[in-house]
């Protein structure tokens, strides 16, 4: 399925990009996360939450094609 992935804050630095469109044979957010962690090993040390089509979701959330997935780390500065 085709997914638009958006990376925020430090996650964009770990993946080296702010956005990418890719196809992946995954059915849930959790499976997609595993694929990304394999490709970008820095992610396994990072804290982030995941949103699908602008809603924060649980790892078991089923993915449909053409959705937008965002990886959102916490920020600290003030």
């Amino acid at each position, binding site marked *: 399925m085709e997914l638009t992935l958006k990376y925020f804050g430090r996650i964009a630095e770990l993946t080296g990009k702010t956005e990418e469109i890719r196809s992946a044979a995954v059915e849930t957010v959790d499976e997609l996360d595993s694929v990304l962690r394999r490709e970008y090993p820095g992610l396994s040390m990072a*804290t982030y939450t995941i949103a699908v089509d602008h809603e924060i979701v649980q790892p078991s959330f089923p993915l449909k094609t053409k959705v937008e997935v965002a990886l959102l780390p916490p*920020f600290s*500065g003030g």
Partner: protein
Amino acid sequence: MNMNRYQRQIQLEDVGPSGQEALAKAKVLVVGAGGLGSPILQYLAAAGVGTLGVADMDTVALSNLHRQLLYSTQDVGKPKVLAAQERLKSLNPEIEIKTYPEGVHTENIMPMIVSYDLIIDGTDNFSTRYLINDACVKSNKAWIYGALFKHQGQFALFNHRGGPCYRCLYPKPPAAGEVAGCNILGVLGTVAGIIGLQMAHLALQTIIWPEEVPNRSVFYVNQQNFSVQHLKMDKNQSLCDNVQSDSWELPQTNAVTNCDSPPNTLSLKEALLLDQALFLDVRDTEEQPKIASVDLQIPVRELELRLKELDKEKTYIAFCKSGQRAKAAATLLKEHYFEAVYALSASAQHLKNAIENENSTTNEVY
């Protein structure tokens, strides 16, 4: 209350005299009077929020002034809460300003927040943020969150009218040193101002239109392309219930540094007892006080490029003003396989005093 001062906002039909009355009655506590806290305090004071609390333990530094427009050059060195109080009073003498120069910590937060309707987090560290979250959940207070990462920012209203809390978004704090703040990464004053104003606006909405304000949303702002992502989120009811229960203890913050509590942190006493250790000043070169006997100085943001100046066989104790950059430096050195690195939890000033005392004692003996 001189209504003429607020005429242009009262003119808005959905604000009106009743909206202004709500602002005048509101009691808002702003924790952290820095890059976010400054614009929040200025705009809430100007809008006529009746009682403003300011909690911050820091003093004004020259390197604050590009983003903390609440302060002037002549305020450098003054406690922030006092400089803020003075400025806000001259901006709007009709409101009450309460100051908490000790900042917030585990012991004082519950009695402090009880007299406020809304808490705003303008701090720069996770330990205080989780403390504010948990204390607000336990006290059933709404709070506004905001934080920065370089040209990006986040903000949200939490624990308002049955909405989610910060732990519903991020259940646990990241590892110490994982996410750096502005002192290390740097920030443009405008980005701090934009996020601070979004938070201030959210506060006005919460006070004037409590039923309409978004309480299940988190916003991500990227000033590089001027985008705002509006993300919906759900409450994690069992997690919030847990935090609310008596068995859930408030997280500990270090009252002295307000830093994320890390491994490998040394108190001043421990640091001075450590044999053969070298002190590493990770502050910027212009920061005061200077300590003549310190072994090395490398600002934390240059550290990664200047690792060759350090020896992996040696023991280093990094220090800075608050302990936060020292922790980041220690974490960074650990990542580069330095084994004996520590962060000093005490400030450079405390270290200087201790070294000078030690020298004067030595002189007396010999």
